[in-house]
């Protein structure tokens, strides 16, 4: 937990509602745009992908890498962010 960013804390603090994909930890402007181009324009759509992969870390990270070319740290941040959000709200 020592390395979670403010973005992470903000995201997991409340239901994501209609937040954009760039609200996800690890997803900045560049990755966000790439995801939007692929149709993942809202955080909940990425959540959908996360869930359909059964919250599997390896698969989700692979998917992020393939979809928006996220690097290892970005994959990690996004995964932990979503995972924690699910633990709290799902």
């Amino acid at each position, binding site marked *: 937990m020592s390395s979670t960013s403010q973005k992470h804390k903000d995201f997991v603090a409340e239901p994501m509602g209609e937040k954009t994909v760039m609200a996800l930890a690890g997803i900045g402007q560049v990755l966000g745009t790439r995801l939007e181009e692929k149709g993942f324009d809202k955080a909940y759509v990425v959540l959908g992908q996360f869930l*359909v992969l*059964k919250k599997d870390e390896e698969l989700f990270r692979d998917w992020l890498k*393939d979809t928006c070319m996220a690097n290892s740290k970005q994959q990690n941040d996004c995964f932990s962010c979503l995972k924690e959000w699910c633990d709290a709200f799902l």
Partner: protein
Amino acid sequence: MNLKFPAGIFSSCFSHTLKFSTAFSSFFTEMSLSEKSDEEISTLLTAYDIKHGPIVDSTRKLYEKKLEKAMENAPVKASSDKTYYREEEEEITYITYHSADRHEGYADMLKRRGNAETDEDEESDQDTEPAIKMTNRAANHSAVRSKEAVRKSGGSMWKRLTTVEPKMIKTCGLIHFRK
């Protein structure tokens, strides 16, 4: 220790098993993964013990990649083969008892003990059949395992046999492994 079994049976049966295995694996790799249906991918994933979610558009490519990796590491599904052999391992004890009628009850007991899960071997109900037939059948399934029994000096095999009934072992002329 000399094995009285004709070596030929082992090699031919073993190669038969091998051919079966390779045929089995090639069945799965014949088509490229992308040509397979979602259900086939799902079946393959299960066959490789890969836990997976639904195979949908967004997940398919990921699972195909995973399958390719798994196939490279283990082209034949090794674990199922191992299970197969292990089941057969029980059956071999049955063979050695098989010569006389009075052994019948024993063979039954061994069979029941060893083959609770192998319904496919139910045909081996005829205890009074000649030794050779039974032997072959078991050998067909897993000659490798028979070899293993020999290599271990029938060690583990012997343990099993001796716990069952030492006297029977002495009287049964079929115990080739002893030599």
